[in-house]
């Protein structure tokens, strides 16, 4: 069944002459984890606010869970859980009291509220901390409390804006695990991030934003193949003169670029043996040669560099 749960058609938002989102087209399937990726200020948050009906689009149309966020915002907001960038809570209230307030606002029946809150807090591992005031919470705990709020609401769609922002690596790993478990429940998740590599692992599909537009959209593997042309990245660390020219002369090598103290080689195939021979043949001292994995960061850099050069 093809049931796109979030649809955007030519969605545009302009603040005066400044265009934040430019003719955005998007269709997200039910149960998918979708990543909006791009640098800060690329229009990710504005897109999210338009999907939630919190900002009015200048033109274009959106449809979330079968409703128009502009005309039926309450229907949309009843079905969508939102975790804003740098989520805030009422610091002097406990985690439970904060959730109780949103539960009442969300119109959850009174007798269900406490059981739902307990279940949600247990799921995110905040059952013990629930009674403490939120001002004692760490950044990671606040973010998990925000996820508990979405769980409590039993939302069909979770929209997470920069969910890993400001988290240490350990907390980030736990958080990504939590997102995977939400996906396992069948929740549709739309998340935005400027940390491309980080979310690469959880997203089914991603859209790469640049300057108010979506440049690329698709499955992570497909993008890697498409943009990098199925090329292999090889990292070479060696001492010697004119090694880049020597490597570039190897048949099959497409590009050699300096990357810090090392050389980054793009090749059509895994040419590690040939490159090693070339380096040694040119009188270089080879210290490291490794196959690098292609990442979204590289896709992003390469694709948008290409766009800029073309322009």
């Amino acid at each position, binding site marked *: 069944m093809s049931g796109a749960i979030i649809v955007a058609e030519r969605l545009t938002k302009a603040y005066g002459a400044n265009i934040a989102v430019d003719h955005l087209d998007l269709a997200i399937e039910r149960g998918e984890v979708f990543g909006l990726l791009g640098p800060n200020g690329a229009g990710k*948050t504005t897109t999210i606010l338009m999907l939630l009906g919190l900002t009015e689009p200048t033109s274009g149309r959106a449809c979330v869970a079968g409703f128009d966020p502009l005309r039926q915002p309450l229907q949309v907001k009843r079905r969508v859980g939102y975790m804003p960038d740098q989520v805030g809570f009422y610091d002097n209230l406990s985690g439970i009291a904060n959730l109780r307030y949103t539960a009442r*606002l969300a119109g959850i029946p009174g007798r269900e509220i406490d059981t739902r809150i307990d279940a949600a807090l247990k799921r995110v591992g905040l059952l013990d901390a629930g009674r403490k005031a939120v001002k004692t919470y760490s950044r990671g705990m606040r973010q998990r409390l925000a996820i508990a709020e979405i769980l409590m609401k039993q939302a069909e769609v979770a929209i997470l804006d920069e969910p890993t922002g400001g988290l240490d690596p350990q907390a980030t790993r736990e958080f990504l695990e939590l997102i995977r478990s939400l996906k396992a429940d069948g929740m549709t998740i739309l998340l935005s991030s400027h940390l491309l590599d980080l979310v690469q692992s959880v997203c089914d599909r991603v859209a790469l934003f640049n300057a108010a537009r979506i440049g690329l959209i698709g499955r992570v593997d497909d993008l890697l193949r498409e943009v990098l042309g199925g090329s292999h990245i090889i990292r070479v660390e060696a001492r010697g003169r004119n090694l880049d020219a020597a490597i570039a002369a190897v048949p099959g090598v497409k590009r050699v670029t300096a990357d810090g103290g090392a050389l980054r080689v793009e090749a059509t195939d895994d040419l590690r043996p040939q490159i090693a021979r070339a380096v040694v043949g040119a009188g270089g001292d080879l210290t490291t040669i490794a196959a690098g994995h292609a990442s979204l960061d590289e896709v992003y850099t390469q694709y948008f560099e290409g766009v800029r050069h073309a322009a």
Partner: protein
Amino acid sequence: MQREGSAFSGVGTVTMKELADNLTSTRMRLLELLIFVTGAGAAYSTIGVVKDQLSEYPFVFLLVFTYGHDPLPSFVGFLGFLIPIVAIALGFDAVNSEFNRRTMSRILAQPIYRDALLIGKFFAGLITLAVVLSALWLLVVGLGILLLGLPPNTDEVLRGFAFLLAAIAYGGVWLALALLFSVIFRSAATAALASLAVWLLFAFFWQMLVPLVTVAIAPPDPYDPYSTLHTINVGMDIARVSPNTLFSEATLAFLSPTTRALGPVLTTQMSGAIRGTPLPLGDSIAIVWPQLTALLASVIVLFVIAYVLFQRQEVRA
């Protein structure tokens, strides 16, 4: 474009939450202290009523509210200052604090309209204000009964109650103003300062400005008595722009039953009147009906401006 769903869903929840916040805050402890001190001040002036042997006055109980016993001002004079401060304290950070705590977008992502948030916050402030003023009013009435040794009669109770309602409406004006500034200014301190600046303008500078402006607009002609009357009327109209003037006129009519008019009265208009006799409550209300309406109208106008600005505000911080 028609929105779907009620603008009022969530108003009750927001009101209860904000009310709980108001009543448990440190701010409320300070207000309670102020109430206590004001009540003590009123008790002091009541002692003055007894000492100065004013018991001949037909509405002796109302003197508890209006009588100033040196060096303290009267209770109503005190309230004229206290109410704006309390109302501003309750409203100046209503909206901007939600942005500063970064709770705004999370709350607005719940199935409620923005209307509910603003209306709920205003109601909570108004209820808190009403609770504070009623407590103070009861305290003063109780102390009055104890110290004077006589209970108020029905007319005095009703007049006192009408005065309480006028005081709440007056507080509503300042609450709506503070709420408006809390929408306009992202910094709570700026909003508080702006509210206090408006209060200072009306509490102290307005009475200095009024004669200057009046003479400029309607200079009196020494050969025409009617132009003098015109000047006085223009002056009163300008003075009534200030909610403080409206409140003190309402207070005067309610608590001094002998007040027959608030402006200049011609001798011809006084024919047949017996000087110094009190008016029935209905007539006192009729005298200040325009003042009461103006107070309520200011509350509504200020709230509507705050509402429109809030609706147009971007959610992102």
